[in-house]
C-alpha cells in the first residue's frame, strides 16, 4: 500500500506538472511551518525524508542535535487549488523524526499519533467534528482596534458584502482540498463567521484544521482582508470558539451510543465525559493557550465558564446534542471550551487522554446541570459541586503543571517547553500596562 501511495504521488507530480512541493508541519504552538522542495527531490523525500535544522522552530530545539527529518505522509498529498495551474504546487503533511527515524518528541503530529495509537489498542477510533468561528477585519486597525467589515448578526443573510463571498470561496476551496463543510453561516458578532466541518478521524481533522486556518487567511488576504482566529478580538461581543463534536467508534459501531439510555449515551460515553470534566482544568492551557483565550471564557457570551454538562444548556462545558432523526452514528458530545487558536494536534491529544482516563478508571458522570449556571451565585454552584474553568492563562498553567495526565499525553519534551514558553508569555502580559488601567487610574489616583 505504501509503495502504491508513493507511486501515486510521484506520478501525479509528473503528470500535473507540479513545480514545487510544499512540506507542511506544525510547531508546538500550532503554527503551520513549510518548506518547499523541487519535484526532483520528491522521490528522495518519500524514501528517506528531508533533513532540516529544527532549532529555529518553536518547541523543536534540543541540546545535542538540531537536525530533524521531515517524512512526508503520502496520503495527505494534494495539489493546491489556488495556485495557477501553469506553475502548479502541491502540499504534503510531514511527520517529524529524529535522524535515526524514531518519532521526534517535539512534533505535535507524532504526539497525536501516539495518543491515537493508545485508543486504537483498545479498538477505539476517535472522531472529531469542529465548529470553527473566526472574524474578517479590514487590513488596517483604527485607533489600535480591528475594523469589522459588516454589521451582520447571527444567521443574517448578508448577500452583498464581501465577507459572505469570501466565505463562499473559502468553502469551495476547502471542498476541493478534501475538507467537507457541513454548515456555514454569519455568526452573532459583526464580521464573525462560522464554518462547521464534517467529522473525520482525529488525525485527518487536525491536518484539516491546519489547512483550514491557512485557506481562510489566504483567501481573505487575496482580497486584502485580514481573517483572524484570535479568540476575543472585540470587546463586548462574542469571541471565537471552536466547539468540538466528539465520538469514539469501535469497528462500525458508535461506542458512545446506547439505545436503552434516555439520552442515548453509553457507559463509555458517560465515563469519557466524566474524564473530560474531572481533568478539564488540567487541559485548559492546551485547549485555550493564549492570554486572550480567557477573555472569551467569561459569563454572558455563550462561552462555557463552568465545569458541567447538560443536554440543552449552552453555558456548560459539555453539551449532549440530540442527534438528527435519532441516528445512532450521530450520537456525540460537544466540548465547548476550545478556541480556534489552539494547536489541534495537542488539543485532541489531551482531550482524548482525559476521556480515555475516564473510561479506564470508570469515572462516575456527575448529575446534569440544566439550570442556567450564569445566573447562579458562587455558593449555589459550590453546593452543586460545580467548579469554574481556569480564569486566566496563569491559572490554567498552574493546574497543568501538576497534571500527570497532561505530561504523559504531551510527552516530557513538549510539556516542559510549553509551560516555559507560556509562563514567559504570561510574564510579558503581567508587566504590560493596559489602556484600561490608564483610563481608570491615571486621573483618579
Amino acid at each position, binding site marked *: 500500500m505504501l509503495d502504491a501511495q508513493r507511486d*501515486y504521488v510521484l506520478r501525479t507530480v509528473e503528470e500535473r506538472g507540479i513545480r514545487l512541493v510544499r512540506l507542511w508541519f506544525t510547531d508546538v504552538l500550532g503554527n503551520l511551518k513549510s518548506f518547499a522542495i523541487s519535484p526532483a527531490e520528491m522521490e528522495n523525500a518519500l524514501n528517506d525524508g528531508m533533513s532540516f535544522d529544527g532549532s529555529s522552530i518553536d518547541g523543536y530545539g534540543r541540546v545535542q542535535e538540531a537536525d530533524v527529518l521531515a517524512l512526508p505522509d503520502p*496520503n495527505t498529498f494534494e495539489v493546491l487549488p489556488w495556485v495557477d495551474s501553469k506553475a502548479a504546487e502541491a502540499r504534503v503533511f510531514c511527520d517529524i523524526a529524529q535522524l535515526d527515524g524514531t518519532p521526534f518528541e517535539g512534533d505535535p503530529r507524532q504526539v497525536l499519533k501516539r495518543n491515537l495509537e493508545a485508543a486504537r489498542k483498545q479498538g477505539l477510533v476517535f472522531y472529531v467534528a469542529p465548529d470553527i468561528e473566526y472574524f474578517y477585519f479590514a487590513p488596517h486597525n483604527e485607533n489600535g482596534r480591528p475594523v469589522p467589515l459588516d454589521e451582520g448578526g447571527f444567521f443574517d443573510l448578508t448577500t452583498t458584502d464581501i465577507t459572505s463571498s469570501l466565505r463562499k470561496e473559502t468553502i469551495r476551496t476547502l471542498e476541493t482540498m478534501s475538507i467537507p463543510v457541513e454548515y456555514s453561516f454569519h455568526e452573532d458578532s459583526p464580521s464573525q463567521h462560522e464554518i462547521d466541518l464534517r467529522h473525520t478521524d482525529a488525525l485527518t481533522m487536525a491536518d484539516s484544521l491546519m489547512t483550514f486556518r491557512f485557506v481562510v487567511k489566504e483567501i481573505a488576504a487575496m482580497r486584502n482582508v485580514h481573517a483572524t482566529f484570535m479568540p476575543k478580538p472585540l470587546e463586548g461581543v462574542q469571541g471565537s470558539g471552536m466547539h468540538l463534536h466528539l465520538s469514539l467508534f469501535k469497528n462500525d459501531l458508535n461506542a458512545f451510543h446506547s439505545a436503552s439510555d434516555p439520552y442515548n449515551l453509553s457507559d463509555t460515553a458517560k465515563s469519557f465525559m466524566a474524564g473530560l470534566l474531572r481533568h478539564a482544568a488540567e487541559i485548559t492551557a492546551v485547549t485555550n493557550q493564549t492570554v486572550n483565550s480567557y477573555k472569551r471564557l467569561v459569563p454572558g457570551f455563550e462561552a462555557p465558564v463552568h465545569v458541567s454538562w447538560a443536554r440543552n444548556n449552552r453555558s456548560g462545558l459539555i453539551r449532549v446534542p440530540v442527534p438528527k432523526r435519532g441516528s445512532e452514528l450521530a450520537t456525540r458530545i460537544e466540548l465547548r471550551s476550545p478556541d480556534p487558536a489552539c494547536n489541534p494536534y495537542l488539543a485532541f491529544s489531551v482531550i482524548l487522554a482525559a476521556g480515555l482516563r475516564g473510561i479506564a478508571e470508570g469515572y462516575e458522570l456527575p448529575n446534569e446541570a440544566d439550570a442556567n449556571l450564569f445566573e447562579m451565585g458562587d455558593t449555589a454552584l459550590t453546593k452543586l459541586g460545580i467548579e469554574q474553568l481556569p480564569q486566566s492563562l496563569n491559572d490554567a498553567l498552574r493546574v497543568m503543571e501538576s497534571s500527570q495526565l497532561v505530561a504523559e499525553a504531551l510527552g516530557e519534551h513538549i510539556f516542559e517547553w510549553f509551560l516555559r514558553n507560556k509562563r514567559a508569555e504570561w510574564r510579558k502580559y503581567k508587566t504590560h500596562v493596559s489602556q484600561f488601567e490608564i483610563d481608570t487610574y491615571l486621573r483618579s489616583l
Partner: protein
Amino acid sequence: MTDVGMLAVYPDTPSVELARTLDLSGYTWKGVANADTVSRLAPTTGWVGAVVGCDTDPESGWAICRSLRKQQHPVQRILVLITGAQIGDLEVRDNLFDDFLLTPFHPRELEARLRHLFFNELTASSATVVEHAGLRLNLETYQATFGGSPLDLTFMEYELLKFFVQHPGRVFSREVLLSDVWGYEYFGGARTVDVHVRRLRAKLGEEHAHLIETVRSVGYRFGASKWSG
C-alpha cells in the same frame, strides 16, 4: 510488448527468421499445419490474428486464410507473406488478408507491420483507461478527469473512485469497500468510507454527486443499477 492474444502461424514450422521475430516482439503464436486444423487448434478465446506464409505453398496458404475468415468469429488481422512474383495473386484475394509482406523480409519491417496491425489491442491493454459517464481514470498515470478537466484526488479517494468505476451498478457494503479498497490492515472503522464518499461527491460537483448513490442500510452504488434500465 504486451500480450495481445494467440496468433495462428502457417506453416506450422515457420522459418527461423519468422519465429524469432515473433518471439522477440513478444507475440504468442501456434503453428497450424493445414486449413482443417485451424478451428480445432484455436484457443477458447479465438485467434487474435494470423501470419500466413503463401510464398512456398500458395494453395495451402490461401486455404488457411479462407478458413480463418470462415470461423464463427472471422479472424481479422491476417498478414500474408508472398514473393515479389505473387503480387498479381493479391488482386482477386483482397478479402482474405489485411496486410502483406514480401519475402525475404526484414525482421524490423515485419515487427512494424504487426505493431501497426495490432495497434488497437496494444494500446488498449497497456493504457488501461476506465471510463464512466464523462469520468475517465488512467490507471497507469493515476490521473482522473471529469469532462476533460483534471480531478485532484488524494490517494485513497482515487483508489475508492477506481473501485467504483471498475464495478459500476453494483452495491457494496462499507465492510466490503474497507477490505477491498483500504485493505485489512486499515483501522479506521466503516465511517472512513462515508468520509471518503462525501469528499468524492464534493469533488465530482453537485450535478454529478449522485453518481455515488447511498443504498439505505446496505452501502453504496456507483452509476445506475443495471436492472433499473
